[in-house]
């Protein structure tokens, strides 16, 4: 009676569909993988134009109030800063003193913030904790310190609960016109904002001391801003300093003044450019691929293009712009679009080949920078506190020495910043209407998560199907031969058969544990003094191979003698590998989607196609030989250092490749607490090792 019930249950449509999928798993995986790759290539065509989602913003609806009066005041500040003729020791204090004087003359509240820059540290567990746990280590860098100058305008009609932040990194030691120009723009806007009547949020202007890097001062100020310390810090931090030859004492008081939650933040910078016209570069990526709300970028783009006549650019991969296959792909899509339009004029899927190439280059750059998980500018520090921030980099045609060009630039730049601040000033709530998860294909086109997730889902869907079908096949292989044996050995044998897959799971866990060890090794390797990256890299590889052999000797080999190595064991190992890789990809897609996408592109074909080479050699058919070749090629390419070197060689040419480059690249990942580093060490590398083990399986 139990059997007929079971067979009745099997006729249900869902179960039938599942059985159909499992029996045609090869076809399903080929179709889904090609559809996933095709979907990814199709993304620039599917990009939509950006639009302002939050109705309260209304960018550009008010006419700008910045005039030449503020520009001339800014010129005074720039001239005074450029005329500083002091030694580097006192340059910081002197320049910050000048800036503080100008700020307080406007009526803003000024305070100096002292911070100690943290050098690169490797704390693997910081990936899982919040930003507050990055407490500085008091003993290490006491001697180095920097001073940020912060000016706050309290809104006359506001309640002091919200603030808009302007950040200008300024390196007083280096000096130069370029550094002071960003200060000039910020000062002109700041002086205007002390006099306007429409201000509803406080304005904070942070002049960050960027001698130790641009990110560190902003991160330190944010940390101190958000973690109130209830002690007499103000009285303790008053110091006197003797400046150079002049020997005058100036009392500098350190402390921190706060305003409220930050609605938005803008980081300004000026760069020398070789462009044909004035351009504005926008950098938006923060740590672990987080992006600010798209509305912030939309406001800046709208005001820059439609009001100030600047050209906006986002980062692109230039090597893709000249690549032939992207151009031919663009032409294919153009002709497809024309065909689709003849079928139905309403569908606007057409895109020109040049647009496709630009879109593909921008999309690839956006995807890569999000995948790295390293912030692309000081604005990344704001994202840890859930504040939307971007970095704006102005670059002009000609040098800044000509005064009229400089005034022009100050006027346009200042009006842009004023317009952005005026729009953000209108907000009643945090940015929440527009997208947080998107990829940019141009400054005015984006692909949202609902679209690019489909390509990823198609690419990853074959994994559980193939795992389930392999497991089902190993189940079918085993029990039939057992029925004839005697009763007592039957019991033990059948129990052991049904728990056989635990062996493969144990192998998978051991390899993942090894992956975790390999991820932690660089912490100890970097403690070796005075070693160059190439030796570090080779030491790392040697230690990894050694630890793998030790682990295999301890944990895996004793048990494999008991059960022997029947035919189907590589199938259970492959099934377990694919399941663990699927779980790893799923987890990574939640943390940083771009990393999961790139990781899936690199690893899914290899994981699905892995087949023991010995069986293929014995097979002697065209299919098995092709499979063997594919497996060998993919096996070499998917090894993380090999992937890195191949791509570097393709982009920059194979001549200048140094083995230490990979170490430097990985070091930048862990120095920024990027989850991508953990992904490479604990998901990608163990999966590669397991696939290689399947390829080399003796059977």
């Amino acid at each position: 009676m139990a059997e007929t019930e079971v067979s009745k249950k099997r006729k249900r449509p869902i179960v039938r569909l599942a059985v159909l999928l499992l029996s045609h798993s090869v076809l399903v995986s080929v179709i889904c993988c090609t559809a996933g790759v095709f979907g990814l290539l199709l993304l620039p065509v599917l990009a939509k134009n950006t639009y302002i989602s939050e109705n309260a913003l209304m960018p550009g609806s008010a006419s700008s109030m910045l005039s030449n009066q503020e520009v001339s005041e800014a010129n005074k500040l720039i001239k005074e800063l450029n005329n500083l003729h002091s030694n580097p020791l006192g340059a910081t204090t002197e320049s910050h003193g000048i800036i503080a004087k100008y700020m307080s003359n406007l009526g803003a509240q000024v305070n100096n913030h002292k911070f100690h820059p943290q050098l690169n540290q490797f704390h693997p567990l910081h990936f899982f904790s919040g930003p507050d746990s990055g407490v500085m280590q008091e003993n290490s860098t006491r001697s180095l310190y920097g001073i940020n100058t912060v000016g706050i305008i309290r809104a006359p009609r506001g309640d002091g609960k919200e603030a808009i932040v302007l950040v200008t990194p300024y390196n007083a030691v280096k000096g130069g016109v370029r550094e002071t120009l960003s200060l000039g723009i910020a000062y002109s806007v700041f002086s205007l904002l002390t006099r306007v009547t429409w201000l509803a949020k406080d304005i904070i202007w942070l002049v960050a001391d960027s001698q130790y890097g641009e990110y560190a001062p902003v991160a330190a100020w944010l940390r101190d801003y958000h973690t109130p310390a209830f002690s007499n810090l103000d009285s303790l931090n008053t110091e006197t300093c003797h400046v150079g030859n002049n020997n005058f004492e100036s009392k500098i008081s350190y402390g921190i003044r706060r305003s409220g939650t930050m609605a938005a933040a803008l980081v300004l910078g000026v760069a020398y450019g070789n462009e044909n016209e004035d351009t504005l570069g926008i950098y938006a990526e923060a740590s672990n691929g987080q992006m600010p709300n798209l509305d912030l970028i939309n406001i800046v783009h709208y005001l820059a293009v439609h009001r100030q006549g600047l050209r906006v650019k986002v980062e692109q991969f230039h090597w893709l712009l000249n690549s032939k296959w992207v151009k031919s792909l663009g032409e294919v899509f153009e002709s497809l679009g024309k065909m689709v339009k003849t079928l139905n004029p309403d569908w606007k899927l057409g895109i020109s080949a040049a647009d496709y190439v630009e879109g593909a280059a921008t999309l690839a750059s956006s995807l890569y920078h999000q995948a790295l998980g390293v912030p692309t500018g000081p604005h990344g520090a704001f994202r840890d506190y859930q504040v939307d921030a971007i970095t704006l980099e102005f670059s002009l045609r000609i040098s800044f020495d000509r005064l009229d060009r400089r005034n022009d630039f100050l006027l346009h730049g200042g009006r842009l910043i004023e317009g952005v601040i005026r729009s953000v000033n209108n907000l009643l709530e945090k940015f929440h209407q527009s997208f947080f998860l998107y990829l940019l294909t141009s400054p005015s086109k984006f692909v949202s998560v609902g679209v690019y997730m489909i390509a990823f889902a198609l690419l990853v869907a074959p994994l559980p199907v193939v795992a389930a079908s392999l497991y089902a096949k190993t189940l079918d292989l085993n029990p039939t031969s057992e029925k004839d044996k005697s009763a007592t050995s039957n019991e033990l044998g059948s129990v052991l058969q049904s728990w056989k897959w635990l062996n493969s799971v144990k192998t998978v866990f051991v390899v993942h544990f090894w992956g975790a060890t390999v991820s932690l090794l660089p912490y100890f390797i970097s403690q070796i003094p005075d070693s160059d990256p190439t030796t570090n890299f080779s030491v790392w590889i040697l230690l990894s191979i050694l630890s793998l052999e030790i682990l295999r000797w301890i944990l895996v080999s004793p048990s494999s003698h008991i059960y022997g190595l029947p035919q189907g064991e590589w199938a259970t190992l492959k099934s377990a590998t694919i399941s663990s890789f699927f779980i790893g990809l799923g987890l990574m897609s939640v943390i940083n989607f771009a990393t999961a996408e790139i990781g899936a592109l690199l690893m899914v074909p290899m994981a699905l196609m892995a087949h023991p080479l010995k069986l293929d050699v014995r097979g002697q058919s065209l299919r098995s030989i092709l499979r063997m070749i594919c497996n060998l090629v993919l096996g070499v390419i998917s090894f993380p250092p090999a992937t890195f070197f191949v791509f570097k060689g393709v982009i920059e040419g194979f001549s200048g490749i140094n083995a230490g480059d990979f170490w430097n690249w990985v070091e930048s990942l862990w120095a920024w607490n990027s989850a991508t580093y953990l992904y490479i060490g604990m998901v990608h590398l163990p999966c590669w090792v397991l696939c290689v083990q399947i390829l080399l399986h003796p059977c």
Partner: protein
Amino acid sequence: LAPLAAFGWVMGTHLSLYPGVLIIPLILLLGNGPDAPPRKLFLQRRCSKGGKNPSSDSSCQEEELFNQSKLPITFSWKPVIHFLFWASIWSVYVLVLCGISVKQNGGMLEMFKSTYGFILTVEDLSPNIGVLWYFFAEVFEFFRNFFLIVFHMNILVMILPLAIRLNHRPCFLAFVYIAISSMLKSYPSVGDSALYLGLLGWFVFELADLQFSFFLFWGCVGVSLLSPVMHNLWIWRGTGNANFYYATAMAFACFQIVLVVESVSAILNYDRKLRKLSVTKPVDGKS
């Protein structure tokens, strides 16, 4: 044996209320004797020894009826009463000790309110791996008592039917009770799941035919890795919300439910298989 068992039971119930339901498998174990084989199968074997061919089934059935009337005799009450006596001694001892130590903190009533009352009334709603906190964060005050009763009855209602069905295997009954209570209790933690997953190894032979074991294993691994990620996304990054985290808690509860249901059906299939084998092969004296 009885004093030790009583001590364990009293301490378990005192520390967290739910091991109290284990009194039923304890009584069954002590009554039948700890090493007794499952009663129904024992009955079969005794019966089949007498009859060699199927035609003597009728005499077999008569013998079965005769034996059934003798059934209560194999269940001895003496160790059970011994156990209950010791349990009462231990519980009085523990309560007296508690009474002495909490005298200045408000007395015994306060202690009961903060320990058992807290577990039963679900006062604190911090997120955990269970399924109760989200629900009670949304329920209206008027219905709160009703839903409290519903959630606690959820466990209590399952005690009696399981006891009736699985009374021939008290160890497995204890396993199922632990599994259900660790899933549906008001403040579960991963340690509770670890307890019953460890006990899974006790029944390796009986659970050999557990269906979906591969899928359950990878599902549990995936959900337990996804849960801290969702927590991070919700609390630290602010791009998720409580629903993400609660979804992983619900998925975890689903996997546990499937595990319990499948293991119970696997045990029952195993018993049926043994019974069939013992009927068709009467010559083999299986022990």
